[in-house]
């Protein structure tokens, strides 16, 4: 029977055990927060990517609108690939299935 100190129990057992759920939640939250931020900027901001797309669509400057949309896509792709790499690094023990 393991009789661990509270700190050891937290850092060696609880935290690593909860890490898969924490990583999933963090990456979902990050993407969702960026999307919501951009959506909010479309409505009431004076700067930012959402504002950029909305502002130039009002002036019918569609090349800049398309550029803004593509840039949003690039930012989200970079964020997800970075968080994915961090997650894979942190959870490398789960990718080592023998069978």
């Amino acid at each position, binding site marked *: *029977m*393991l*009789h*661990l100190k509270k700190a*050891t129990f937290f850092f*060696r*057992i609880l935290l*690593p*055990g909860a*890490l898969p759920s924490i990583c999933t939640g963090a990456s979902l939250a990050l993407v969702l927060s960026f999307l919501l931020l951009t959506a909010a900027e479309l409505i009431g901001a004076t700067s930012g990517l959402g504002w950029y797309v909305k502002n130039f669509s009002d002036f019918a400057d569609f090349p800049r609108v398309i550029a803004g949309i593509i840039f949003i896509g690039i930012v989200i792709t970079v964020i997800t690939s970075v968080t994915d790499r961090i997650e894979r690094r942190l*959870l490398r*023990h*789960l*990718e*080592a*299935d*023998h*069978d």
Partner: protein
Amino acid sequence: MIKLDNIDFFYGHKSILQNISLSVDQGEFVCLLGESGCGKSTLLRLIAGLNRPREGTITIDGNPVNGPEKKCAVVFQDYSLFPWMSTLDNLVLAIKSAFPDKSAPAVRVLGRSYLELVGLGTAANKYPAQLSGGMRQRAAIARALAIDPEILLLDEPFGALDPLNRAILQDLLLTLWRDPAKKRTVVFVTHDVEEAIYLGSRLVVLSSSPGRIIADRRLDKDPALNRQQLFETLEIKALHQQLIDIYRHDVLQKLEFRSLQDDGGGI
């Protein structure tokens, strides 16, 4: 010595164990037998201090069990290794918690020696997910042994293994138990009659739910006999049949009781 005195255990309103009294002497290898759901694992958890009985007392060497017991090491069917630690680190954590005064290098050396004992010397730095089922179970057994427990509690540890690995680990467990320097007490839960006969020095059979002790047999086996020779002896053949009959009788009684309940014949 483990002593259980009139143990009753319930999950909610459902009675799981009823009036269990049992004394296990030091150095015994007790196999708890019974069909699935009869409360064998619950009984093991009660001894380990992971659950508390509603009625009755459990003592180990005269001290009541009121929580997770330091003298016990438990091996579960699903290995219970921490997947984020290497095999060696799993052992190191257990050894550190059992022997806080040992230096870090000494703990690692001890961990490696137990891994080598179970044939996993080369897998020390691998994660559990990189090991086969048999190797994981060996690592779990090594971890349990590494804390040098007086009592080893095993809950169907070989249930999920293929027959070859199962036989290898059964022999390994017997070798470790027979180590005269340690004289460990083992309580082993299984529903496999042959496994119980091969391993145990004492067989305790539980009835189907609620679990009650319906048979308690001590075995006097010649340790020089191999598996095949053991099962060819007349005494063991007779015991095997006896245990099967006890099982069958219990199941038939239960079915009879159920049919009486269903058709109202008991009224």
